[in-house]
């Protein structure tokens, strides 16, 4: 088991009557890339602020690198880099000067600061724009500069709050790859929040789904699906060619939806079978598509199409976020 670098226990944050984060418990291992996925206003940013010691929790404990952010915010900030949502720079300074200033805030002496800033700018691919004023940077460039800024203190953990907001698709891809590369090269733990599931799916080792202040589920994509869909990670949709005509023309007997349902239920792993006109929906915990096909064919029904459906983050997302909000 990997050692835990971030541990959250029963973390709660209340603003008056409103509970932004509700008894959150979560732990993140060293070197992991963890995605915090949730719709806007789910409490992702609040959780991040509490991790950084930028706001005080109402209840519960947080430990980052073995430190309590409420008690030792400065020690935590020495080890954790935080890229806020929609980060800003001093527009009248160049990207390089901005970085040097951050270095100085971290107590790095001037000469070293300049050296390191140059290095980091090259690393995030901004060496060409180094002497350009930060006010003239595009959004994508600003995010890269933000990443360089975060890496300035040689962090053990970096926390990125909605880092991909407002960047174009190709920029997002590059940026995410940059994060993954940096994390792998330096063994940095990355926690990043997003409401964009595809990005999270692309880069994260583990994902936590966050809705209305509660963590609904956590784990990698496959285990998430099984957690959320109570074991039925797969779904097979089969369309049966019209049963009546089949019996009429070939005289084949023995086919009836009831029989077929019974047969299908006998297959190991099948959990539910439901009919909708000529289509049958079968949800199962493991991939038994071929078995299903065999059973349908041998039952005498005409198999018009067979569709295997794997639950992606998409389904998880829509099922939970949209379903969740409608229910309540």
């Amino acid at each position, binding site marked *: 088991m990997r050692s835990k670098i971030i541990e959250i226990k029963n973390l709660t944050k209340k603003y008056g009557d409103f509970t932004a984060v509700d008894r959150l418990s979560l732990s993140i291992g060293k070197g992991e890339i963890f995605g915090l996925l949730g719709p806007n206003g789910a409490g992702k*940013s609040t959780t991040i*602020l509490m991790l*950084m010691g*930028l*706001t*005080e929790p109402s*209840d519960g404990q947080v430990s980052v690198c073995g430190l309590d952010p*409420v*008690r*030792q915010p*400065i*020690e935590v*900030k*020495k080890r*954790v*880099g*935080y*890229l*806020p*949502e*929609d*980060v*800003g*720079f*001093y*527009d*009248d300074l160049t990207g390089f000067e901005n970085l040097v*200033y*951050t270095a*100085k*805030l*971290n*107590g790095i*002496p001037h000469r070293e600061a300049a050296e390191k800033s140059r290095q980091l700018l090259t690393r995030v691919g901004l060496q060409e724009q180094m002497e350009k004023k930060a006010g003239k940077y595009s959004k994508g460039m600003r995010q890269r500069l*933000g990443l360089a*800024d975060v890496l300035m*203190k040689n962090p053990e953990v970096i926390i990125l*709050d909605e880092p991909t907001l407002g960047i174009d698709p190709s920029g997002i891809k590059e940026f995410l790859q940059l994060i993954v590369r940096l994390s792998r090269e330096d063994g940095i733990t990355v926690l990043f929040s997003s409401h964009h599931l595809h990005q999270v799916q692309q880069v994260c080792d583990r994902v936590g789904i966050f809705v209305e202040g509660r963590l609904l589920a956590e784990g990698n994509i496959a285990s998430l699906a099984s957690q959320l869909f109570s074991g039925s990670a797969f779904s097979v949709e089969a369309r049966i060619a019209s049963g009546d005509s089949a019996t009429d023309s070939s005289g084949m007997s023995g086919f009836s939806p009831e029989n077929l349902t019974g047969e299908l239920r006998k297959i190991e792993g099948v959990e539910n079978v439901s009919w909708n006109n000529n289509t049958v929906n079968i949800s199962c915990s493991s991939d038994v598509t071929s078995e299903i096909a065999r059973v349908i064919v041998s039952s005498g029904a005409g198999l018009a199409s067979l569709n295997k459906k794997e639950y992606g983050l998409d389904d998880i997302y829509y099922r939970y976020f949209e379903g969740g909000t409608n229910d309540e």
Partner: protein
Amino acid sequence: MDWTIFTTAILKEEQMMNETTIQNKTETKTGWEDKIQRFIWFLQDKFKTIQNPGTESGVFRAMVLKEVSDHIRSWRVIILIGIIVLTSVGSLYTALSGISDAAKPGSSEDAFFFLKLFTLSDGSLPSYFVFIGFLGPLLGISLGFDAVNSEHSRGTLSRMLAQPIPRDYVINAKFVAALLVISVLFFVLSFLVIGAGLIALGIPPTPEEFLRIIFFTLLSIVYVALWLNLSVYFSVRFKQPATSALAGIAVWLFFTVFYPLIVNIVTKVLAPSQYAPVRTQYLFEKFKFAIMQVMPNELFSQATSTLLMPSVRNLGPLTMEQVQGAIPGPLPPGQSLLLVWPQLTGLIALTILCFILTYITFMRREIRSR
């Protein structure tokens, strides 16, 4: 050495206490207990930074330097300095043109030529110290009104607070930087006036005059620092720089225009009749004096006029008894300073009050990005 041992002992004791309270915290946790706990932690952190400043002071210096360079480069400050330099040149000119009439041989005040440069006016333009009293607040407000909220709206504040610096460094650096700019400006202006006086009058200032001018300059810096702190407070309190600038100007206008008006109305209503006993009249005058003292600009003008005019021997009402037997003559600088001591402490206290207010508001604030 002893001190360090002592404080570490205290810290250890506190730490032990903390540990026990943490254990208790899970069982019985009330709001105020928690607050006291956090306050103790905060004090501990402060203790630690005081004990080993090391790199921290370097960080603070870097922040102050950045703020100063921001100020110097900004158009706002350049324009303001331009205005102040122009007005001081103007008032210096009127003072110089009127100085030959003012220097009447034989009068007790003719020894203070240089101070006249600061106080004299021919009526077309107010004198130098009146100008500073008028423009100083404006300078202070304009240096501070967007100190914190502009950082917030640019999105740099949350980035800065994610760096390993104590949060109060942010406002401390802003305050110190602005104060540095003001101090340099005022000292330069005062020395320029002295220099111009040297050339125009051909006689050097006496040590006493020089001392008085230095006191006056320091006093003006304190006065501007008060308005600076007030506007920094507004910049923490209000999200929009325009709102906080307006709030600062509103306070300034209130004290320069409306408050005297209100005082006037109140005192008119309360005024005792001409035939009231002396004691009542005396108390009324005292009261009138006291309610005027609430205004920072009144404190400033009383203090500066006393410092720059050695012949001012008292502030506030006096009875005939007290005046009896007094020989009119200039006061030595030490005595003048003693006379304005209450005003000076009042100004410094107001400055500190504003600063504490800023501190409390800012330290408790949750900083979200933009």
